[in-house]
């Protein structure tokens, strides 16, 4: 049996007396699409920050494939294929989309260390960046500065940046957050189009996305994992309903039966 | 009979109290809004010049000028906050540094224009220029009063911070500004009041500093460096941190000048760099 793509054991974190994560145990087999849901303040983004190394855990271990990465700095984890996107766009406002993604590609290939040759001398990196953008339908606007893009396009650029690093495990933090309805089609297509080699964990409040893409759902409340299961099991679970889901999910559930 | 080192320690403590009064406002406002206000030194200088003007030109007794120094600095800081500073809270570090340094430059030039570049003489009443001798060490009365006054103010600040509602709001805003807003605390108003208080204290410190270190237009710059050292070493937003750092800095400076004068300010800078490298957020910093 091959090692899971990502696993955490006993992960815990507190800020003084405020416990934001306690005994988190998650296992992501290779190539799955899992969703992480929970009410606001449940600690979902904190968990992402712990996994990616932006926060140091008070206790617990994190495993990528077989390796214990708990002590690795964030950029090393990215190099090994553990990549995240941000809930609130964290982009490079004055760089064009093409420059942003080219930057990510150059960092990956270590071309970014060379200061003695011009960027043009790296056509492969530029082409790769363009291809990623084109696959996300951002080709025509790639030369525009990031801050001039529409919000939905910026969300897609977030994903493009992540893809440029050739992730093995991709953590999407509310990819659909703030995206207006008429721009979300491309976003859904982008997520659907993610290669099956990539293991995906996404935090979402948008239940449509969860039911459409996730094969398994993890529910977090108050810094702990409450329960895990298939989307239908979770929707039907009375505990989860009481804490979080309510009417929206049951409607979506009925919708997905018929449509 | 106590060895002379106690005299040095006492003088250092007095100097440290002075630095504390001048720096505490900067520390709290930096901790609350991350606003790098280099013009803080100008408010201290203003307090000094208000005292000098009132005493030398209008014969106001020294202790009566102190509240005036406080109020003048506080009021002017409110004006500056409204006109300039409010617009750059979200600006880059560099912009904040540049704007506030520009204000320091302007204030130095204005002071030189009005008062000239010479040090201001201050004629304190005789009892303030005397000293008490205790166990072989001479304690200047002025410095005793300074230490006493500073301790009273420190205690008031500490109690106010811990037990009043306003103090709780300040603590919340320093700890986590966004969450404080979310809890319904009017952070902007809290900040404005804190800013005025801090600048007023700086003005008071500047007034008290005249007798100890002298006053001339370059005061705003010279003591700005010390204030920055106190704040960055003590920790942003921490009153106790500023207190500790100010005392350490005051004693180091006085002791250094007394025992190893050829090193000059070298020691202070080295201490600051070392402490910052060990604890970049300051000894007791939160951000």
């Amino acid at each position, binding site marked *: 049996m091959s090692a899971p793509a990502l696993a955490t054991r006993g992960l815990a974190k507190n800020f003084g007396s405020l416990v934001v994560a306690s005994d988190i145990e998650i296992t992501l087999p290779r190539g799955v699409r899992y969703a992480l849901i929970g009410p606001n303040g449940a600690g979902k983004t904190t968990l992402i920050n712990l996994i990616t190394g932006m926060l140091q855990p008070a206790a617990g271990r994190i495993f990528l494939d077989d390796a214990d990465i708990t002590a690795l700095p964030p950029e090393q984890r990215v190099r090994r294929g553990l990549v995240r996107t941000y809930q609130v766009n964290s982009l490079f*406002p004055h760089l064009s989309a093409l420059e942003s993604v080219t930057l990510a590609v150059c*960092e990956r290939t270590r071309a970014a260390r060379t*200061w003695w040759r011009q960027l043009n001398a790296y056509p492969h990196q530029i082409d790769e960046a363009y291809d990623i953008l084109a696959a996300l339908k951002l080709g025509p606007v790639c030369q525009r500065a990031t801050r001039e893009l529409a919000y939905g396009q910026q969300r897609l650029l977030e994903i493009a940046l992540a893809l440029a690093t050739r992730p093995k495990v991709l953590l999407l933090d509310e990819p659909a957050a703030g995206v207006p309805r008429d721009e979300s089609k491309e976003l859904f297509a982008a997520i659907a189009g993610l290669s099956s080699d990539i293991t995906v964990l996404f935090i979402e409040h948008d239940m449509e996305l969860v039911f459409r893409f996730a094969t398994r759902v993890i529910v977090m409340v108050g810094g702990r994992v409450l329960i895990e299961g298939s989307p239908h099991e979770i929707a039907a679970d009375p505990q989860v309903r009481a804490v979080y889901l309510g009417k929206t999910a049951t409607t979506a559930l009925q919708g997905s039966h018929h449509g | 009979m106590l060895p002379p080192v106690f005299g040095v320690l006492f003088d250092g403590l007095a100097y440290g109290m002075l630095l504390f009064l001048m720096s505490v406002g900067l520390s709290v406002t930096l901790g609350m809004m991350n606003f790098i206000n280099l013009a803080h030194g100008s408010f201290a200088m203003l307090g000094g010049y208000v005292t000098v003007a009132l005493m030398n030109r209008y014969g106001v007794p020294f202790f009566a000028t102190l509240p005036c120094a406080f109020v003048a600095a506080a009021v002017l800081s409110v004006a500056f906050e409204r006109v300039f500073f409010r617009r750059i809270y979200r600006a880059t570090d560099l912009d904040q540094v540049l704007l506030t340094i520009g204000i320091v430059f302007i204030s130095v030039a204005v002071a030189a224009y009005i008062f000239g570049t010479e040090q201001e003489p201050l004629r304190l009443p005789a009892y303030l220029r005397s000293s008490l001798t205790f166990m072989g060490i001479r304690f200047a009365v002025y410095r005793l009063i300074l230490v006493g006054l500073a301790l009273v103010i420190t205690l008031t600040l500490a109690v106010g911070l811990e037990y009043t509602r306003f103090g709780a709001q300040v603590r919340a805003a320093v700890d986590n500004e966004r969450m404080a807003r979310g809890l319904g605390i009017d952070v902007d108003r809290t900040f404005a009041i804190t800013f005025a208080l801090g600048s007023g204290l700086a003005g008071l410190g500047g007034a008290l500093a005249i007798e100890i270190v002298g006053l001339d237009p370059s005061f705003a710059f010279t003591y700005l460096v010390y204030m920055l050292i106190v704040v960055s070493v003590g920790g942003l937003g921490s009153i106790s941190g500023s207190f500790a750092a100010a005392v350490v800095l005051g004693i180091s400076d006085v002791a250094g000048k007394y025992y190893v004068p050829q090193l000059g300010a070298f020691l202070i800078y080295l201490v600051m760099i070392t402490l910052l490298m060990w604890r970049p957020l300051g000894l007791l910093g939160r951000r």
Partner: protein
Amino acid sequence: MALSEGTVSPQLYLRAQTRWRPAEIVFWLATLLPYLLFPNYLSLASQIAVAALFALSLDLILGYAGIVSLGHAAFFGIGAYTAGLVSKQGWGEPLSGLLIAALAAGVVGYATSFVICRFRHLALIMLTLGFGLLLEELANTLGWLTGGMDGLQGIHTWKLLGYFSYDLYGRVAYAYALAVLFVLFLFARQLIHSPFGLSLRGIRENFVRMPAIGAPSRAHIRTIYTIAAGIAGIAGAVLAQTTETVSLDSLGFERSAEIVVMLVLGGAGRLYGGLVGAIIYMIARDQFSGIVPQYWYFWIGILLVAVVMFLPNGVLGGLAKLTTRWSRP
């Protein structure tokens, strides 16, 4: 590749960013004007060239990587004193003197970069300030080496390339300073347009995001800080060699602050900002040299407030905004 109308292929687009613009060519040709129009001001022109080079080195770390340094004059001073001391010891060959100065400044820059790269915001500003002040105190204390308040005496610069001796009118000095500036400018230009240059802009634009795309930000910062230190050192060395004096104010806080003002005035992060700012500032200072220092600082203060409130990207930024407004119908 499917492209919509009106856009060029990505590679051509990126290449177009690096093309020499007509205004640039005009600028560099104009630097030769002093020979024709202001032959009596060539020594001022040399000093402007030195300041421009110094400002350029600061732009690399401040404008492109976002490191606010209030102590950059430390490297300028190290370069100046190194070149001066080497000359005093008997080796006055200018070009090799430059290299030695660059090496000295670069080594110190490299060492301090390990500290610098670990800090941000106020701690970083204070550390750069502290290092600068520390070095100033050190230079003052080591009077036997640096000449203290009197400055370094006995510097004698040999003929440039074995042929051109430095004349009283400063013709050779200006040519020398200008040539050094131009060569290093080309170097900086190449660096900015390299993948590394793109990383620096990434660091400036969004520091937090960089590790999330696998970028070793600290290593990048160390590299650019070292390079910037070396270039500042060269600027100091040129000053020492052309004026044959070095004094304490070459590494003082005033000089560090002045260079920040020049860069911000011209516009940081635009490669030419430091050059433009240096020209404006130094000419203004020369014109108003009769003014008492306090009043000079009064106007600098007004300038700083005005720049931050109304012209946040400096003169070049303001010009860029104007030209985009004009080019749009």
